């Protein structure tokens, strides 16, 4: 049984005159201990998806339809009280900016202890011991001293470690990490990623990594979902997606990386920009930027088809696959 299963999730933002659909028909599953990544550019809906899973979408956003199931409990219909049992304890979240997540006027120790004591009934002293143990766990040196310090006394990498420690306090089953290393330097980023990876592996925690950096994703995740304009356009094993991308958007995204062209050559750019929610094109949302677009792409939304181990929503791939199938049928007949 899947640990988390999201099916046909639709999230929209209700404005005065119109409903803007931020997520359309998102479905995916997450097994125990599995690490998946959600990739896409700004405005693709990655973060909205991350927030929706723990029902943290603030007004005017709301979950229109679909279901999010944690084992067999439905999260979308829970009341606040039930949700608080899930948030932190079962599903924990790491945000992009560690300075925004930590309260600047409360010591790190008190923030950690508060987290533990709001979920379990134990003494301050016991909670303190757990907190210090977790700080050691994320390789913070002189954890006893750090316990009494304020967030501004720590560097960015150190703060992100504290956040990871705070997430580990209640031994969650799933960690959702929304761009956890974007605000950090390369050397620190490598350390934090390594830390996240070992923690997830050692404790069997499932990870949902939200990122725009395909390099980061390839280091951490087993499976990847590529999002474009509120929809998942491709899903499959990370290696498969990186080595053999099927959807034109995924191909464009990978080809745009500077590593993909020889130094000094012009980079392969995707023309145009991601459409805003209000101006979503009809049919496949990628068609105005797609080099292979046909009249059909402008009218219909492609469904998911399986291609190898991954699934893709694209008419071109669909046509190619059916051509292949026809050819092999003919060969069999002959």
């Amino acid at each position: 049984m899947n640990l988390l299963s999201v099916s046909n999730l639709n999230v929209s933002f209700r404005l005065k005159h119109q409903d803007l659909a931020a997520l359309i028909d998102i479905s995916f599953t997450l097994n125990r201990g599995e690490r998946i990544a959600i990739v896409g550019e700004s405005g693709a809906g990655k973060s909205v998806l991350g927030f929706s899973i723990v029902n943290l979408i603030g007004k005017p956003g709301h979950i229109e339809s679909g279901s999010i199931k944690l084992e067999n409990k439905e999260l979308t219909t829970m009341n606040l009280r039930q949700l608080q049992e899930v948030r932190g304890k079962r599903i924990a979240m790491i945000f992009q900016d560690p300075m925004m997540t930590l309260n600047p006027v409360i010591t790190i120790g008190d923030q950690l202890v508060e987290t533990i004591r709001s979920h379990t009934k134990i003494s301050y002293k016991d909670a303190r011991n757990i907190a210090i143990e977790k700080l050691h766990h994320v390789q913070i040196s002189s954890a006893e001293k750090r316990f009494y310090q304020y967030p501004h006394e720590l560097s960015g990498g150190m703060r992100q470690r504290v956040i990871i420690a705070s997430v580990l306090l209640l031994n969650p089953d799933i960690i959702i990490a929304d761009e956890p290393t974007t605000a950090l330097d390369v050397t620190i980023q490598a350390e934090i990623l390594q830390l996240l990876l070992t923690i997830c592996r050692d404790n069997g925690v499932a990870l949902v990594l939200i990122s725009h950096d395909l390099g980061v994703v390839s280091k951490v995740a087993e499976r990847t979902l590529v999002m474009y304009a509120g929809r998942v356009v491709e899903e499959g094993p990370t290696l498969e997606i990186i080595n053999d991308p099927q959807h034109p958007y995924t191909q464009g995204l990978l080809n745009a990386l500077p590593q993909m062209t020889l130094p000094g050559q012009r980079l392969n750019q995707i023309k145009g920009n991601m459409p805003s929610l209000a101006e979503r094109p009809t049919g496949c949302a990628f068609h105005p930027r797609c080099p292979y677009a046909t009249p059909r792409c402008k009218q219909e939304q492609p469904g998911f088809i399986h291609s190898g181990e991954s699934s893709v929503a694209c008419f071109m791939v669909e046509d190619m696959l059916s051509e292949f199938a026809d050819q092999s049928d003919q060969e069999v007949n002959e």
Partner: protein
Amino acid sequence: MTTPLIQISGLEKAFSTDESWLNQWRLQQGKIKRRKDNVHALNGVNLTINQGETLCVVGETGCGKSTLARVIMGLTPPSAGEIYYLDQRIDQLNDKERMFFRRRMQMVFQNPYASLNPRMTVYQTLSEPIAFHNPQLSRYEIDEQIEVLLESVGISATSSDHYPHEFSGGQRQRISLARALSVEPDFIVADEPLSALDVSVQAQVLNLMMDKQEERNLSYLFITHDLAVVEHFATRVAVMYLGRVCELASTTTLFDYPKHPYTQALLSAIPRLDSNTAQPIRLIGEVPTPIEKPIGCVFQARCPYANQRCYESSPKMILQSDASSVACHAVEEGRL
């Protein structure tokens, strides 16, 4: 050999930490003494930028990359050292004398959301520098120039009466670039121009910058922390650490044979797509604050190869056989 376009020697910049007058008094060995703390953002930087080349400066947050850019542009005065444009010294000029060089050197900033005036239309943003530096031009000629300029950065000239908020991040960064190009400079300092942009948009802006370089024989000082961009775009690379340049080499040499231990660690930390790359070299600790001027090598605290000499004397830039220069005792002694 021709004279380099920009030559910097022994550049230093210290910022005072701005404590209040009362806080500057400290008790030292039974006496009350006044002490001012300075942040040494630049610590003796020597660099040259040749005509038509791209010099990339890489390094972590707080290593002085942006300060270097601002000092070269004359936005903050240096504490010591000299900056030459061709053969003229430009670091001690007053505003009036500097005017000529402002035209020759332009800057593109990191955040296109903050560097364009939100209350000026694109037309106003671009016409201001053109009209200011070319007072002899008629209104009609300015209009014409702006039209050509906008088309050349891939923005339709019909949108010249739009305000910055109506554009996306990539378009805004292109407008910033158009503004820099409007006075026909031959040197552009770009301070992390891509870091606020998405991958696909990043490619658009980078391509545009390369096109302009070919068209106008521009030289770039390109400041970034994204090593993949550096590998693609740079002619030469300077690696900075705590206000010093620790390695300077041509791009291929640097990426194929990094010599300084910091460069090696930095390169190994890039998350690459191919799965079979080696484990990143782990640096212990984080970048120390540059408040005290360090004795010895700036990298000593995190360097796995540091020995007694590294704690005592500061390494000098030494030219290597493959034309790169490295400031490291371990490389000099052949320990590495």
